[in-house]
């Protein structure tokens, strides 16, 4: 199984890396927010508050939309061809997920590099811990995205996901912190698991590590990941009519 995962990952990565522009393009929305909205935000807030939000936005847009790839492969018959090989179903899923995670890491690095140029100053340890959180969250979002892509009508995937992602981004307080929101909106945002992850990221970027917020963020990420990977594996194990 590890070998199959590795073989699939390497193959997928070589295809991804052939389209370098595609990787940058996948990060275009958060980059635009950074460049065209960040300077306004910086007049009353800090880059260390905004950038974690943009990273979350990037994660949702990049790995959340990963399911596109499998919709495409399904249409082309590639998925079916791979399903007739002895490769394990879990390997078919994980090979893809790993590839999406590497893409997300490259995109996050790009976003951070630009953010540093604009004035972000976060401690190395906070950045490293943040990366770990992003990697784990990215993996679970990708797995969930595949599960959705293989469950709903493939023509609905794009409209459903792009409609779902936007409120999730707003509701997690990615663009403006929920501390600025009226009570009802603040309360509502506790329903989004990403709020907790985001607040943990903000603490990490501010150099606060041993806080309750970080602990809750990590716990939510772990639970979310366990659920997503379970669903993803189940769907990949299921027959595809």
């Amino acid at each position: 199984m590890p070998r199959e995962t590795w073989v699939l990952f390497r193959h997928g990565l070589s295809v991804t890396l052939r389209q370098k522009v595609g990787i940058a393009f996948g990060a275009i929305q958060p980059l635009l927010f950074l460049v065209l909205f960040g300077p306004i935000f910086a007049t009353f807030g800090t880059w260390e508050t905004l950038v974690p939000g943009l990273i979350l936005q990037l994660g949702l847009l990049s790995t959340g939309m990963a399911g596109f790839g499998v919709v495409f492969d399904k249409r082309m018959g590639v998925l079916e061809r791979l399903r007739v090989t002895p490769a394990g179903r879990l390997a078919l899923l994980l090979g893809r997920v790993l590839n999406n995670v590497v893409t997300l890491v490259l995109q996050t690095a790009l976003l951070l590099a630009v953010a540093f140029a604009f004035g972000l100053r976060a401690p190395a340890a906070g950045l490293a811990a943040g990366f770990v959180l992003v990697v784990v969250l990215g993996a679970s979002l990708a797995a969930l995205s595949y599960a959705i892509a293989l469950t709903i009508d493939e023509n609905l995937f794009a409209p459903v996901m792009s409609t779902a992602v936007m409120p999730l981004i707003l509701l997690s307080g990615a663009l403006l912190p929920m501390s600025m929101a009226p009570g009802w909106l603040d309360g509502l945002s506790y329903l989004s698991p990403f709020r907790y992850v985001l607040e943990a990221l903000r603490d990490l970027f501010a150099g606060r590590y041993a806080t309750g917020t970080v602990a809750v963020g990590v716990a939510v990420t772990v639970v979310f990941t366990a659920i997503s990977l379970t669903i993803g594996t189940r769907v990949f194990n299921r027959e595809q009519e």
Partner: protein
Amino acid sequence: MINTMGLSKTFKGGAEAVRGVDICVEQGEIVGFLGQNGAGKTTTMRLLTTLLRPTAGTATVAGHDLIGAPKEVRRRIGYVAQSGAMPPVSPVKGELELQGMLYGLSRREVAARAEEVLARMELTGLETAFPAALSGGQRRRFDIAFALLHDPALLFLDEPTTGLDPGSRANLWDLIRSLRADQGMTVFLSTHYLDEADALCDRVLIIDHGRIVAEGAPAALKTGGRTLDDVFLDITGRSPREQSDVPTGKEA
């Protein structure tokens, strides 16, 4: 090589695509699987290749239990789907390497095997192309090359010549015959071209409404000076290329 008893598939919506099919295919046979669109051909193929789980019945494919040991079955079979299976934007070479390595071959073994298979399929030199740049006949032969990389004992071809010009069809028939002649490969192919079954197959099975309604050597079925077309018409009441009048939920 294939042995099924009462193999059935009822989809969740209630459509009974395959209803108690018994199939027996010996090693080295080329067997044609005939039926109209919607008769259950593709669903049966997808059951036999482990892509779908039967809702009833048992089957042994390539020496292993279809339900109990699908992985063992997968190691020994090749499957070429009707629609092909190559991503248009990725060079064929990388896809072949992935395919071979998923069967446990090393990169070097895949390269050697691919060279052999591509030569047999008359595709040498074309592996660096993008599928979008290949002709229909070349793409079809590449699809088959993918399925041959791991040297399967049993090859499933779902409507292999649909959409090909007459020259490419004849060429593909020769290639399929040579697989059996040189390697003793068993071939199970679905088609709705009766001339194809007549020219290529030792035996044909006719499926209609999810049931096998006739089987035998083409010559044995063509009694009384009838063509295989007439036989098909007599048995099912329709021509093989007509659409089925039975709604099955999806192309099955």
